[in-house]
């Protein structure tokens, strides 16, 4: 997974994201921000799902769905 664009994003705690290379901006919820932080830290999909379960006390099916959907959104916006 190419993470260079993700590493360059300016991400605010409010969930507002600005891409300094494209000028595009996005908003993300708390879960997506959590997943993006893990992606930036180099964690694998499985590690992120486990981290989500641990942090939010959610089941693994929900954590997996959230992780995959966030990754798909990032791919659709050419951010990874």
């Amino acid at each position, binding site marked *: 997974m190419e993470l260079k664009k993700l590493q360059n994003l300016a991400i605010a705690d409010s969930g507002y994201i600005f891409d300094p*290379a494209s*000028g595009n901006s996005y908003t993300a919820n708390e879960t997506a921000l959590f997943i993006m932080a893990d992606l930036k830290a180099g964690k694998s999909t499985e590690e992120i799902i486990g981290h989500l379960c641990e942090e939010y006390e959610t089941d693994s099916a929900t954590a997996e769905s959230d992780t995959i959907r966030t990754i798909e959104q990032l791919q659709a916006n050419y951010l990874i």
Partner: protein
Amino acid sequence: MITVAMSGINAIDNPGPGTGIARSLKESDLEIRTIGLAYDSMEPGIFMDWVIDKSYILPWPSCDPKVYLERLSYIHDREQIDVIIPALDAELPLYMKLRPEIEAMGIKLLLPDIKTYMRRDKQNLVQLAPELGLLVPETLVMSSPADIVTAESMFGYPMMIKGPFYEAFKVRTRAEAEKEFYNMAAKWGYPIIAQQFIVGDEYDMIGLADGHGMDMGTMAIKKIMTTKLGKVWTNVAVRNDAIFEAARKFVTGLKWAGGYELELLQKAGTDEFYLIEINPRFPAWLYMAAGCGINLPERMVKHLLNMPYETHSDYEAGKMLIRYTGEMIRHISDFEQLTTLGESREKTDKTKNRQND
């Protein structure tokens, strides 16, 4: 005191860069008297006396060059101009032609020669871009509406129809293409350019170069909101290596002299940037660069007057420019002075518009 004259002070819905140049200079660390060179007594910049100290009406650039030069000479006699920054596409060839006479008066200019100027012309871009190592959309130079059929077979619809100097419209059918062809030809003359439409995001880069391949500063933006004519209304500063690289190729490859604007399009979903247009002067959103710490008119003046100047392109991505509309209230006598004498009143503390206080 340094006296700098600039044109393009038509701060209207299709704005020229002149008031942005004047404002940048007023905010520089130089003490500058700004002289507006106008072609119509209703150009708003004439009345914006917090950035333009005095304005003169000039004959149209299509007039006899001797007449134009006589008018410039008259203004120079009164103002002792150090630098002129011509800012309109239509007048640049005239300034290039009159350059020896203007420089003989002691006025400095930073302009390319006519050959270099023509190489970046819209109709020659398709030859130039590959030489610079840049991509360009498929383009057809048209002299007759019958050429639209050829453009259709080359790249189909939608396509862009562009005038020789200004304006570009996206068309979706042959009827629309013909309508814009005639509209554009009536307004700006020939040739009319048909260009492949590429889906993606538009970026603009402003810059200044010394004519020997030296980059004197650049800045890139993404257009967020535009007017119906495609003019920037809101933009955001971006930093993208591919855009900086395009500017470097242009400045070093063409040995450009003066201000410029590159219009680039990033094809959606790719890292490919296409060169859409090279404007041979500062764009109307020029003040954005000064506002972000890259004062290009100041650098140009310092360069021409052999003063030290900065060449960095350090600015923060994410800064935004937001245009707004405003009104001025002036007396009819100001207009009378312009129409009868062809020049504005000398600004005094009493008459000065306090718009910016």
